[in-house]
């Protein structure tokens, strides 16, 4: 079987080489100031720090689970910074970098993975829905949401584009393929953002597809683009264009961000059991942060002082993340009945009353023992 890898792919959109050299692309002119590029660098470093801290917190028993984004920072920050306030994100469970771009506090994410909350942020205020754990299902929700936006006439320059995040494994799911088709026939204002990180837990890409993933879109009747997902500038430029196209009523785009999951699928698995270290070494050469740092330094767009300041800020953020995580309050047992139905419900009322009585019986016993 033959499948295309990034370095041999002539259709890969790349603006910044792994060595930090900028290459102009005729279709994706880069309209960005030096300050904005520095801002992207800061985002990448801080997002990686949040992720590193969260992995450590899980190892220390503070979180039940964490899904690391290590290696995928540019795909998430580049696309996240392409969004406008009115846009709506449907994430999977690894989009911590996009959450950062949507002003969701990192400890709100930790609350989810610690299990003390099911929510934490207002999806409408942030234009960022809650995490979806089932693979690929959010693509249908994003498409239906986008069809609703279209129905309500909320398009145009100040309108809403919807973006859905998923991985290479999700492209095999029926939900994803049905979403592609529904979006196509309805010309829905949605961008499908696939982070192809090469691995669905232990299954490599060649077990998911015989054609490059971005080419799937052509079969459904909308454009598909493959970008270097470790190039934050290409990701930004291509995603901006796809979102604009959606807002202007030109329908969906599939973006395949070609990247690599440097860590485990989640803290529950050990990737050394299913992949070789040479592959990781190869991808280390394409690190998203190092190439942007090289570009900033080579172009004289940032000084050593700037890089030091970002590192200091990352240290401070890391400390805050640890403190906020440990300060998250445990929920009360009766909270299990709180968010089952939006309306009052007799089943729930009965269960809550029975359980409250059961809990109260322990309190009584406790008082007696105390004496």
């Amino acid at each position: 079987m033959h499948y295309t890898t990034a370095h041999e792919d002539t259709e890969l959109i790349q603006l910044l080489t792994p060595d930090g050299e900028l290459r102009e692309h005729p279709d994706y002119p880069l309209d960005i100031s030096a300050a904005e590029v520095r801002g992207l660098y800061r985002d990448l470093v801080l997002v990686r720090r949040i992720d590193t801290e969260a992995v450590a917190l899980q190892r220390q028993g503070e979180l039940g689970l964490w899904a690391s984004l290590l290696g995928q920072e540019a795909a998430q920050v580049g696309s996240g910074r392409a969004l406008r306030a009115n846009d709506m994100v449907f994430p999977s469970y690894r989009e911590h970098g996009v959450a950062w771009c949507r002003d969701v506090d990192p400890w709100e994410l930790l609350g989810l993975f610690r299990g003390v909350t099911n929510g934490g942020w207002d999806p409408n205020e942030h234009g960022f829905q809650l995490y979806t754990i089932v693979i690929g299902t959010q693509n249908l929700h994003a498409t239906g949401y986008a069809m609703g936006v279209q129905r309500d006439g909320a398009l145009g320059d100040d309108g809403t584009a919807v973006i859905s995040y998923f991985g290479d494994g999700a492209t095999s799911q029926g939900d994803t393929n049905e979403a592609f088709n529904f979006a196509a026939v309805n010309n829905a204002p949605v961008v499908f953002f696939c982070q192809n990180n090469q691995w669905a837990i232990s299954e490599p890409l060649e077990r998911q597809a015989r054609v490059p993933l971005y080419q799937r879109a052509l079969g459904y009747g909308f454009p598909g683009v493959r970008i270097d997902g470790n190039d934050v500038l290409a990701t930004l430029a291509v995603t901006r264009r796809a979102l604009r196209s959606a807002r202007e009523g030109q329908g969906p785009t599939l973006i395949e961000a070609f990247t690599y999951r440097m860590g485990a699928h989640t803290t529950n698995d050990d990737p050394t059991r299913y992949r070789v270290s040479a592959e990781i070494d190869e991808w280390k050469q394409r690190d998203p942060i190092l190439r942007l740092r090289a570009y900033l330094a080579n172009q004289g767009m940032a000084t050593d002082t700037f890089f030091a300041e970002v590192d200091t800020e990352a240290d401070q953020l890391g400390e805050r993340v640890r403190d906020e995580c440990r300060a998250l309050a445990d929920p009360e047992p009766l909270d299990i009945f709180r968010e089952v139905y939006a309306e009052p419900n007799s089943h729930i009322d009965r269960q809550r009353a029975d359980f409250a009585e059961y809990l109260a019986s322990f309190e009584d016993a406790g008082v007696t023992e105390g004496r």
Partner: protein
Amino acid sequence: MSVITYRQALRDTLRAEMLRDEDVFLIGEEIGVFEGSYKITEGLLKEFGERRVRDTPIAEEGFVGTAIGAAMLGLRPVVEVMTINFSLLAIDQIVNHAAKVYGMFGGQTSVPMVIRTPGGGGQQLGATHSQNIELFYSFIPGLKVLAPSGPADAAAMLRAAIRDNDPVLLLENLGLYNSKGEVPEDDEPVAEIGRAAVSREGSDITLIGYSRMASVATQVAQSLAEEDISVEVIDLRSLRPLDRETIVESVCKTGSAVIAEDDWLTYGIGAEIAATIQEGAFDFLDAPVRRVAMAEVPLPYAKPLESAALPSAESVTTAVKETLNAVGRRVG
């Protein structure tokens, strides 16, 4: 009051709710131009246009999933799944998303969606198109499941389902679409979700059913009245939440119960009702609770075999009489 069919009651209510609330829209396969396989959406595309009546690709997971997304935006989709058999293709979106988005999104996003879908055998549609699998959905916290047995309830329950902020599955029945009954014309009653009805009062025995079997139960009670047997009929109306109080209260009064259900016996809805009765009315029972259900086979296509497999007025009548005999009251 006017006498209309179950089908007409559903259709008129859809139309009235669409006129009342701009956010209500219909989505599903074959519902627009074709007006639905069972013509519940007749004339609605013509009247409201494609913005309100959306024909979709033939993909149940797709149109249920996109409806959930639209509901997350604040719209009120009414999904038609052609028959409940096809809901199996959408079960992940129904069970893992419609039922759980509210909780898993921290109570911040509700899914005010209705899934209308008929169950029921007896139409010679074969084993894959004749099932009664409402149990799957009645099992799931986060869903509500309503099962109207007549036109007035069909209207009142559909209205309640559309106005409710939780996902509701409205179980229709192929065998009931042409049934007729009185429906109020002017006022618009909204059913209370989770409330059973004592559709006929009696003193000798409680007969419990829902959907088509509630209608059969009423016929059985009427004919047994001629034999001087007084049957109290309970129409469950809502499978989740279940109105346990009404069931228990009736059995405490009559001392015996028969459950008539169109699904399979083992692990079926009737098992839950029987458990409810023994929990709430154990000391009042004079005989074991009986269940009458479908033969536990894939429903046959051949008419005589299909009829043999389905519960009927005759099989329910027999169970009622045998139960009364067990109580010690000798009946035919």
